Structures are given as C-alpha cells and as structure tokens.
C-alpha cells in the first residue's frame, strides 16, 4: 500500500509513545527497587542497593518461584497434550458439534477468573471431596491453558494443509509415522509458542490460583500479594519483578525467532 511519509511518521510516533507508556510503570518499578523511599514517592529521595541484597536472600520468594515454575511446567505439559489432540481433531476431521468443542476450549479463559475459581474450588471440595493442594492447582491451570496451545496448533495445521500428510500415507507411512515425520516437525514451533504462552499464563495467574491452591502452596503471585503491602517488603517485591521482566526476554526472543522462521517456510 502507498503509505505517505506523513502517515508513516504519525504511526511511528504513536508506536513510540505507546511503547513509552507501556514501559513507564515498569521503569517506576525499577526505580522503586533502588529507591530509599518505601512508598514509591516521586521523585525518589535517594538510591540504595539494600533491597536487591534483601531480595537475593529472600527464601520465601525463591521457594515461591520454584513452586510457580513447577506448576507452570506441569500445567503447560498437560495443556500441550490436550491442546494438540483437540487441534488435530478439529483441523483434520469433520464432525457434528465442532463449534461446541471450540467454545468448550475457549470458555475457561473467556469466563471471568473468579467464576472459574469458585466453580473449581466448589467442585474439588464438595463434589470430589479432595483436599486443595498442588495437584488441584495444576489441574485448574491446565484447564485454562489448553486454549493457547490449541489456537497455535490449529492455526498452523490449517495453514500447512493436508497434502504432505496424504503424500506420506500414499507412500506407505502409517498414521504414527506420518505424525512423527511429517505433521509434528511442521507443528513443533507452533507448539513451542503455544506452550510458552501457557507457561506465562499459568506463571502469572492469581485469581484462579487464590481459590484452587491448598494451604502451604505459595506461588510467586500469591507471595507477591502477601508481601506487597507489608512495610519494608514492597521494594523487595519490586526487585523480584525487575528480575522476572528481564529474564522473560530470553524465551520470548527464542519463540519469536522460531515461529517467524516456520511461518515463512509454511506460507512459501
């Protein structure tokens, strides 16, 4: 499209301003992690590394981090299996009720977290009679993570078409061989992207977590919520947030690179 110089500059400026606004609060969090003020008052009265020292020694934060990683990995793996199966079924077969299955997959993320939270809490405790613990949390997270894997896998399966799979079967490969050698290699990066999104979704979730984690199960968001308003602890929370935001760029960059490469290869 012929995009005029003026339009280019205007859109570019808007993008820069919006990105600036996106990062402004994160910048404030960073400043808070080195500010001598505990209440985030502006401008910062002075700077200190005290909070960084405290944060790096905070056992509670690191235990919570470990718990969050465990829950996020377990629920992403479950979501990867279930999401891939559902995507294969909906992209490769015709059947009655397709739209309903699609809605069923989207529903856990589309309904408000608090509804999902109290529904699962009620079901676990009164219907199934199980104690809330790590497993109830993983089951809850996996349920709303399926959709991210499903959407990525479904889009890729639709884009790559069925010709290669048919060719593989015509050449005598069985169903599993075709999946292993033809479908899966095409799908890999979409699954990685979906899995990473699922991981991120689980890692940061607080509302469903509040209702489905057993006593003693403290994920990082729960730890942050418990510590955010404690005097002395707010800046420590800010340090942890800065560390997470910086670390997050690595998996994102990898996923981005992989999906971009694959999408080009598929569309060619």
């Amino acid at each position, binding site marked *: 499209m*012929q995009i005029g110089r003026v339009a280019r500059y205007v859109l570019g400026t808007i993008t820069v301003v*919006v990105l600036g606004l996106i990062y402004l609060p994160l910048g404030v969090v960073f400043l808070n992690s080195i500010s001598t003020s505990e209440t985030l008052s502006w401008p910062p009265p002075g700077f200190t590394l005290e909070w960084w020292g405290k944060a790096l020694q905070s056992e509670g934060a690191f235990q919570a981090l470990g718990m969050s990683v465990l829950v996020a990995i377990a629920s992403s793996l479950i979501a990867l299996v279930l999401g891939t199966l*559902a995507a294969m079924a909906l992209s490769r077969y015709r059947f009655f009720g397709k739209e309903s299955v699609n809605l069923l997959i989207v*529903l856990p993320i589309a309904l408000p977290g608090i509804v999902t939270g109290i529904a699962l809490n009620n079901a676990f405790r009164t219907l199934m009679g199980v104690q809330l613990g790590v497993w109830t949390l993983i089951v809850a997270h996996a349920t709303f993570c399926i959709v991210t894997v499903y959407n990525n896998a479904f889009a890729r399966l639709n884009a790559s078409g069925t010709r290669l799979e048919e060719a593989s079967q015509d050449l005598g490969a069985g*169903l599993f061989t075709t999946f292993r050698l033809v479908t899966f290699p095409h799908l890999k990066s979409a699954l990685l992207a979906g899995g990473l999104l699922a991981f991120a979704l689980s890692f*940061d979730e607080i509302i469903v977590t509040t209702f489905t984690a057993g006593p003693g199960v403290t994920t990082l968001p729960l730890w942050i919520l418990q510590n955010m308003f404690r005097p002395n602890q707010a800046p420590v929370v800010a340090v942890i947030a800065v560390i997470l935001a910086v670390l997050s760029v690595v998996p994102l960059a990898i996923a*981005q690179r992989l999906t971009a490469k694959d999408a080009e290869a598929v569309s060619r």
Partner: protein
Amino acid sequence: MTTRSVSAFLAPRRRLQLAGLLTPPVLWLGLVYVVALAALLVTAFWTVDELTGQVQIEWTTENVVEVLTGALYRTVTLRTLGIAILVTVIDIIVAVPVAFFMAKIARPRMRHLLVIAVLAPLWASYLVKVYAWRALLSSEGLIEWAVSPFGLDTPGYGIVGVVLTLSYLWLPYVIMPIYAGFDRVPDRLLEASADLGAKGWTTLVAVVLPMIRPAIIAGSIFAFSLSLGDYITTGIVGGTTQMLGNLVYTNVGAANNLPLAAAISLIPIGIILLYLAAVRRTGALRSL
C-alpha cells in the same frame, strides 16, 4: 500389538481416529470444567444455613431474584459493564495504529524487536504492574508531580484509576491478535487496491478493516472479559469502587455465602456468553 498393527487397524477407521483424538480433551474439559460450572449454577438456587454457615440443599430462587432485581446489583452491573466497554474501546483505539505500524511499516528486524517489546511486559507480574499504577496515581506519585504545574490533580484512586490500569494491563493482549490480523493481510492486496486507484485511506477502510475485523474482535474478548471479572485491580487502585468481581469475592470470603456468590456470577457469565454468541460467526474465536 505393535504400533504398526495399531496404525494399520486405525488407518481406514476415521471415526475411531477422531474419537481417540477428541476423547481426552473433551473428557478433561467436561469432567473438570463443565461439571464444576454446572454445580456452581445449581448452587445459586440453594441457600445457606444462617447458624452454621453451611450450604443447604434447599431449593429457592431467592438469591437469583435478589440479584436480578436488587438496586445494588443493577448499579454495580452497569458500572462494571461501563468500565469493561470503556477499557475495550480505549485498548482497540490504541492498539490498531501500533499493530498496523508493526505489521506493515516496520522492517522485519524492527518488527521482531517490537513484538518482543510488546510481549515482554506480560511477564512482569500482573500484581506488580497494578502496584506500579497505585504508585503512579498516588498523591505523591509521578502523575501528580507531572500535572500539578498545570494546576491539575492526579485522578487518584477511583473509577478513572481502574479504567487506566485495566487498559494498561490488557493492551498487549489486544495488540497481539490485531498485529497478527494485519500480518495476514497480503501486501499484494494492498498493491492491487492502490493500482486500481484507491487512496491509502480507502484501501484501509474498504480492504484492510473488513479483513482484520475478526482479529479486533478477538482482542476485544480479552480486554472485555478480563475487565468484567476483575476484583484485584479494583481493590488496589479503585478506592471504594466496587465491581461485580468484588461482590462475588466478598460473598465467597467474608460473607461465606456461596449460593449468593454463585447467583451474582450468573451476571458476568450471561454477559460473556451473549458476547461470545454474538461474535462466534465472525470466526474471532479462532484468532484468540
């Protein structure tokens, strides 16, 4: 049985393959989610023993009638809907030009960096971002410091604070599907439109917008439904503002009245289902 013989057995039986693929996810979602949701809806028609605080299986429409007719619930529902719609509209208005720039103007290298720049904040904890806004909005915060020379005040903690914070939180979720939507519009079409004499603006309205409508709706589902159920942001930057999520939370926690909480949650469930039904035809659910 070897995998080979399983494969040979399954190959001509498409229905059986489909059943094998579909059973685990549908069983999981059905058993875990649909059953839980149905149980919650049923609970809305039960009651709580005033002495013991236990849920009693005693059928009554009292909770549902109260929620549907009570003035408190009407006010809070309208407020929540207003906030959710406002947040969605703000996010779309901000997201469309940014997504367009990312997909159609930025060079590929720059594009990757921009995608990462938009996605990275999603990993900084939701709570920390809300807390950052609490700091920004406070009477000693950056906003007050920046606008006070002009004789203005920070909006402080209230509805404006909630709308600003929620718009900020969900913006990346809205930018990404719209970006993907613009990215799927082939440059050839834009060139064809230009060759046929359309000006940039005409191309945008007549060619591009119809194609990215599902993507915009997909983005709006995130902003709308995430806002509709939020209670934590309201608690931190909303002052005394109450949204539907807060009413549900109070009744589950402090008031210990699950049936009433379940009855209140029928409102957001109903709104979301209506919204999903309205947008289902556009194919937006597949662009999430």
